[in-house]
């Protein structure tokens, strides 16, 4: 028997409109989750380097738990497990956003910690010696410099989280992979469809990379 595979361009093109319906969900989950994760990351990142042990240990516990367990387990736990606790179902979109938020928040906490700790102690000493309060010194001297150093690892985390949303097909959110699976079930064109799905992820992540590079260049220019 002779077997010859031919990439079916028509099938790939036909799949685009259906697959594209997944893009808003992918974007909503990743960027919604990342926005909350960013806030969590700043909060817990700063708490994790606080002098006060009672503020520090809950932050470190949170970071270690969400960095140390798979995001797939986290989202399954939120979607299937948590409803037992709260007594009502959690919709897949909310579960997905929550999982990205909590997971990226833990990684971003570490990015924040690293960024802040990388700033020379002389900077805050100069601020304090000028009479600035601790918080003035932090927010007008240490933080702006730390934030600039955080941009590349933040971009990295953004890209990781966007790709992580592909796992959420398991809870039935109509994101890119889920749309692909449903489409393939009807057309049996797995090669073409996953190829297009991959390209769509690449388009999103490359756009983000490009934006971050622009942001980075602007930051570097003024140092």
């Amino acid at each position: 028997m002779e077997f010859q595979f031919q990439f079916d361009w028509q099938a790939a093109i036909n799949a685009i409109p259906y697959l594209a319906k997944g893009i808003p969900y992918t974007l909503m989950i990743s960027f919604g989750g990342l926005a909350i994760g960013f806030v969590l990351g700043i909060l817990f990142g700063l708490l994790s380097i606080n002098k006060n042990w009672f503020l520090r240990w809950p932050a470190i516990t949170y970071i270690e738990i969400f960095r140390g367990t798979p995001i797939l387990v986290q989202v399954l736990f939120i979607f299937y497990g948590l409803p037992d606790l709260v007594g009502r179902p959690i919709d897949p979109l909310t579960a997905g956003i929550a999982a990205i938020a909590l997971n990226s928040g833990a990684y971003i906490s570490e990015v924040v910690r690293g960024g802040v700790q990388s700033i020379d102690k002389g900077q805050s000493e100069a601020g304090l010696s000028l009479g600035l309060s601790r918080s003035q010194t932090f927010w007008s001297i240490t933080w702006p410099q730390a934030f600039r150093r955080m941009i590349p690892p933040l971009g990295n985390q953004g890209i990781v989280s966007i790709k992580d949303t592909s796992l959420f097909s398991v809870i039935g959110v109509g994101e890119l992979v889920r749309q692909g699976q449903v489409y393939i079930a009807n057309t049996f064109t797995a090669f073409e469809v996953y190829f297009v799905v991959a390209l769509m992820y690449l388009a999103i992540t490359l756009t983000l990379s490009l934006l971050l590079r622009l942001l980075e260049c602007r930051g570097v220019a003024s140092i």
Partner: protein
Amino acid sequence: MTQIVKMKGMNKYFGKLHVLKNIDLTVEQGEVVVIIGASGSGKSTLIRCVNGLEEYESGTLEVDSHRLAPKAGNQKTLADIRKEVGMVFQQFNLFPHLTVKNNIMLAPMKVKNASQVVANATAERLLDRVGIGNQADKYPSQLSGGQQQRVAIARALAMEPRLMLFDEPTSALDPEMIGEVLDVMRELAKEGMTMMVVTHEMGFAREVADRVIYIHEGQIVEEGNPADVFDNPQNERTQAFLSRVLAH
């Protein structure tokens, strides 16, 4: 005469290391006190205690009649002291994300609520005074070391301090830039600024200091006017130190 700094029986430890031993020292208004000593002798730690960048463990410290208690001290007192005490660091510690002018305007605007216009005028005046009025809109990294240190001096002066602390201000500079920084400090001294200077520039100490203090292993072992200390040191430690640094 008003005493700006009054230390009595001050002790400071880094863990088990006893870095300042029973320090008694007063600095009068308008006086220039130069502190010399080998590295690790505690001279930097001594002036860092004055504005509370280092805590001390026992004794008393009064800065411009604000009494700063041992250990953490009172935050309000600390803030009051730091408003009146300027500091210049060995590594300049300019803020790299701000322009030269904004480095100088930051503290007056944040701490004294000076308006943009007033802070701007102050910055321009001070930059002219330290001889770099034409560099106001550059970033620190675009300046030479000597220029950066002069900006750092201007930045401290913008808060109109009653006392200036200099922590080895020329030690990180290329030799040809040391002179321009010392010139600015000499001018300041001439205008009557109270100064505590930690330095290895013995020529500057001899010329500008009203009093020279030699610290050895956390103790003040010799103190006097520069001519006496340099030409006729009494303590053998001072003699040994000076013969090492003045020999070449």
